[in-house]
């Protein structure tokens, strides 16, 4: 089956957008027109140039090419977005699997803990954590992941509760297969698919949250290019020098949009297959 | 009052849910519309109400209600002259609105009376359907009422529209037998007291026997037989009517197995050339592959190749 048919036209388009951003991020030193400026070297003589043939997206207050900055910013944003989801999944999945499989008081206690985390507005907890840990990409990832893992834990637990009573799992148990083996061989593979789709859907929101933190000055610090921080830096010059804040803002929006539409498309194919 | 000749309903231009329904319902009577599920009874009712689903095409030789052509202006009669008593009253009432509010919405759609007067009207209507404590019912949510009470509320709603023609779609199917009998008695009484006319859609010959003056037998969206109930029950002409009657518990001698029909109704996609019932008919003949003639006898008619005496 062709990709377009599986994902639909919007889904395929969004997959392309994601791939383009990912390639740009990986190959930044080669595709960025002014790689040095992308990393942060100032170029004062050319400050606040409007978009032109030389600078497609204009230049910022230090004369750096916005396109190069946005391309380098994709490195940070892509990595944070994906890593936030990955780390959350890495914490949430085992916790949810174990709680769901073994049940009892451990399950009860774990549910109440997630209750507390979920009772906290997520962004607020992330801000609190990030403020405590200090700025930086790793701290930003940890801060957001701490607020996100309960969602995956709950999702994994719900999957396990269903899968645990499937005939083939029952059969494995009766044949004396050990619980760790049942979890790893029979339950985990089946639970991965819905969790994977959810994870894909969540990269967009993860990216938005991370960019919000960096807008607040809790993300990557300059001179490293980072979209949220660039929007904040360009804000005083908006709307007169609109390109400064708009370029990174549109980049965040596009990537978040692409991930969310792609996730929806993936979920739809999952439903069709089921 | 209602005259239907050759009614046809096609959905998405290939699903023939109603193929050729003839109906003639005189004022002040209860007319049964009987057949297995999927034979187009409910769709016929919806066509009369003007509530066919999207993509449905409607055709008829004659389709009139007291001279008004329903082919064009059905929506104007729905809820004015014609109202529906829906099957499964639990589903037909809005679960999150109190009965009073649901009655009132109907009343204010159809009159300009002030709110307190409407409340009195609603209570009177509920009382007319035999509900003992109308005020309590008006303040209740549907799930707080029993099935029989819910069905009475649904009937009261239909009366609240001021309609004099009710389409009762399986009004007793969701109820247990004794409550169902009470509801049927109520409908009978309403016909006598208020001069209503009722089209009773049912799959149950007992219901027809109990309350209907006349009845039409539908098979695969075609009226195969129509006539006064008594004649229909005593001397059915069409083999399908006979089969339906044979399925009645008290119609068969003790010990005899239920005469279940082999096969199934032709699907709506199938184009029917001859007699629709022929593939399942115990008396089918080669000639049944051609369209059956319309035979009449007094106030009744049927569509069959068999002569009356053979039948």
């Amino acid at each position: 089956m062709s990709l377009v048919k599986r994902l639909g036209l919007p889904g395929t388009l969004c997959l392309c957008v994601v791939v383009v951003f990912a390639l740009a991020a990986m190959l930044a030193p080669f595709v960025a027109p002014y790689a040095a400026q992308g990393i942060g070297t100032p170029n004062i003589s050319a400050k606040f140039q409007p978009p032109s043939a030389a600078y497609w997206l204009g230049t910022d207050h230090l004369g750096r090419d916005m396109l190069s900055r946005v391309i380098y910013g994709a490195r940070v944003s892509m990595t944070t977005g994906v890593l936030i989801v990955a780390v959350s999944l890495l914490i949430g999945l085992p916790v949810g699997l174990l709680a769901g499989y073994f049940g009892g008081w451990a399950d009860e206690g774990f549910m109440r803990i997630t209750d507390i985390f979920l009772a906290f507005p997520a962004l607020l907890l992330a801000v609190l954590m990030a403020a405590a840990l200090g700025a930086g990409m790793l701290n930003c990832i940890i801060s957001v992941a701490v607020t996100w893992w309960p969602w995956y834990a709950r999702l994994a637990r719900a999957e396990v509760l269903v899968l645990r009573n499937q005939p083939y799992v029952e059969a494995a148990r009766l044949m004396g297969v050990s619980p760790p083996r049942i979890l790893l061989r029979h339950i985990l593979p089946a639970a991965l698919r819905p969790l994977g789709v959810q994870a894909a859907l969540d990269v967009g929101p993860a990216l938005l949250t991370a960019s919000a933190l960096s807008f607040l000055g809790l993300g990557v610090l300059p001179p490293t290019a980072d979209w949220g921080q660039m929007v904040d830096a360009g804000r005083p010059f908006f709307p007169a020098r609109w390109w400064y804040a708009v370029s990174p803002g549109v980049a965040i929006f596009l990537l978040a949009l692409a991930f969310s539409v792609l996730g929806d498309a993936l979920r739809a194919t999952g439903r069709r297959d089921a | 009052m209602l005259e239907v000749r050759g009614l046809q309903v096609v959905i998405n231009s290939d699903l023939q849910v109603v193929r050729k329904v003839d109906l003639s319902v005189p004022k002040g009577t209860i007319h049964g519309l009987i057949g297995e599920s999927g034979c187009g009874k409910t769709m016929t009712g919806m066509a009369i109400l003007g509530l066919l689903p999207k993509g449905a095409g409607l055709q008829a030789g004659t389709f009139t209600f007291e001279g008004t052509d329903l082919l064009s202006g059905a929506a104007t009669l729905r809820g004015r002259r014609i109202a529906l008593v829906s099957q499964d009253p639990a589903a037909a009432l809005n679960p999150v609105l109190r009965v009073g509010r649901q009655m009132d919405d109907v009343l204010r759609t159809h009159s300009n009376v002030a709110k307190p007067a409407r409340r009195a009207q609603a209570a009177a209507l509920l009382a007319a359907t035999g509900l003992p404590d109308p005020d309590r019912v008006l303040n209740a949510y549907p799930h707080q009422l029993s099935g029989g009470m819910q069905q009475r509320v649904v009937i009261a709603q239909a009366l609240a529209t001021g309609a004099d023609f009710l389409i009762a779609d399986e009004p007793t199917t969701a109820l247990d037998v004794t409550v169902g009998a009470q509801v049927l008695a109520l409908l009978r009484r309403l016909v006598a007291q208020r001069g209503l006319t009722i089209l009773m859609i049912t799959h149950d010959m007992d219901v027809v026997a109990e309350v209907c003056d006349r009845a039409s037998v539908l098979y695969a969206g075609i009226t195969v037989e129509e006539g006064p109930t008594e004649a229909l029950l005593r001397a059915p002409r069409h083999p399908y009517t006979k089969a339906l009657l044979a399925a009645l518990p008290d119609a068969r001698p003790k010990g005899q197995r239920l005469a279940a029909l082999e096969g199934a109704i032709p699907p709506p996609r199938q184009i029917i050339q001859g007699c629709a019932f022929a593939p399942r008919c115990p008396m089918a003949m080669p000639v049944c592959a051609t369209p059956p003639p319309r035979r009449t006898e007094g106030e009744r008619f049927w569509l069959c190749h068999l002569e009356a005496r053979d039948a």
Partner: protein
Amino acid sequence: MALARYLLRRLVLSVFVVLGVTMLVFTVAQVVPSDPAALYAGPRPTAALIAKARETLHLDAPLPERFLTFAHAMATADFGVSYKSRRAISQDLAVYLPATLELAIFSTGLALLIGIPSGVIAAARRGGLLDRLGGLSSIVAVAMPTFFLAMLLQGVFCQWLGLLPLSGRIGKEFSVIDPVPFVTGFMLIDTALAARFDAFRDAMAHLILPGLTLAAYPAGVAMRLTRSAMIEILERRHILAARALGLSEARILFGHALPNAVGPALTVIGLSFAYALTGAVLVEIVFAWPGLGRYVSEAILSKDFPVIAAAALVVTLCYVAMNLILDMVQALVDPRVALT
């Protein structure tokens, strides 16, 4: 009484949640790498000053004891003093909290007002132009970074078109020259109480853009949820029955079908309120809204942890209270909820 038992259970659960959140805030405070005593001691701390600060802040007491002190202080609304300004945090909160709540409530209302009717119309005209347009804008609203939207709206409506005020809660003429007395801290209520309708209009004008910014995302969610709920409800038999009784299409949509969608609507209120409370951190910076969000963001920059903790706790309290109220409303509106 099933209803009373249900509500009691929710209440007990909420108490536990608040306790847990307090513990969480305290734990986070413990992992702060910087030394609170050093911050408290002032800009040029000497060893003696730091030692004194450690004593004032009870930093040398054992952990459980410090937690109990902390929890007790929070429970009595004694949030301590800001490390930076040395002002009592509870005094600051009394001014900033109403500002943020006003914004949150206003934007929640806006989200419902935009999202629910458009969801109803999208469901009624499924597949039509309005439905597609609504679906598209809800996707856009969900993917739009809050702070970027705030900036764009401000740029277009204030700086470019000059239609609405740039920032703040109210114009100078009503705050400095001829101030409206502070009663509740809710600008709309205070101006109305003082019968100053020009001031009321001005306060409203200041609310529109930040409110709209915070309403965009929940409105998108509201539209999606309402649409899918309505599509399912419109298939139900009682809707067909209502049509057969001759009720008008508008009454069927808004009077009969929509009340069945109360569940999603309440979900949206909770979500929107939470979103506004936390999004306030971002939006208040852009619109210079003197609320909790700006207070926190300033505290973040100066590592003023007591302020951050107090604000986080207060916001969570509002959030938990809101959810509790929503649970109650849900149980009252749909009497079947409490039975399950």
